[in-house]
């Protein structure tokens, strides 16, 4: 993780932009895990943080860690995402990517690569510009388990201008 952060900083250093390269968000999720034995809706409620490094208009590195309040697990993910933005409404975007997932409870979130599709919507850009509504679906390549989440993010701040 430290090596990746250092690499991203080195890559980012030569450039300047008004938009920060790194941004951090606090988040709450309702998450649905695809379990053949026990399907509940939602499977758990999570709280945690997300960090992104936007490297270009459409390419970002993303990472997150969340704690499941009911099942008392911790999970984390790190990967990359390609984003499509509505030119008429930059407050809505869709991302396709892949992340490597780890957790302290593999029965909840197996350790594996999982492609994902994400949607983010800044629903109140004037009144609450720091709030983003999100949804994400992912599919574990080894476990063949799906995960779907819907949540809210609060932008904490950014660095790397």
């Amino acid at each position, binding site marked *: 993780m430290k090596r990746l952060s250092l690499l991203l900083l080195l890559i980012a250093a030569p450039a300047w932009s008004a938009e920060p390269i790194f941004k951090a968000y606090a988040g709450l999720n309702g998450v649905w895990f695809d379990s053949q034995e026990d399907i509940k809706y939602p499977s758990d409620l999570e709280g945690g943080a997300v960090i992104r490094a936007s490297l270009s208009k*459409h390419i970002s590195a993303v990472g997150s860690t969340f704690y499941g309040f009911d099942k008392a697990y911790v999970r984390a993910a790190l990967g990359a995402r390609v984003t499509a*933005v509505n030119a008429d409404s930059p407050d809505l975007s869709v991302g396709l990517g892949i992340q490597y997932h780890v957790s302290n409870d593999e029965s909840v979130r197996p350790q594996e690569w999982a492609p994902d599709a*994400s949607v983010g919507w*800044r629903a109140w850009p004037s009144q609450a510009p720091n709030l983003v509504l999100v949804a994400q679906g992912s599919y574990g390549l080894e476990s063949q388990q799906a995960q779907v989440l819907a949540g809210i993010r609060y932008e904490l701040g950014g660095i790397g201008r």
Partner: protein
Amino acid sequence: MIIAEVLSALAGVPANNIKKLVAAGVSVAPWDSAEEGRRLLLTLDRAITPEAIASLWGVVSAELREILAGQINPADNPSDSA
């Protein structure tokens, strides 16, 4: 359907194909049988054409070259926070 238009603009997939895909996904949800899953995959297969993949790869590869050249142009994409 804004998402269909967005994906269409980026990837070059006809927006109607994406709308059909989403409609198919809604019609089979929850996907509780192999037959329904197969129908969804067939619809997906028809929507994602080689031309669409080539168009998307053109955008991504150009930006990858910029990143490797040290040109970082960050954007504020809401979906990056998901």
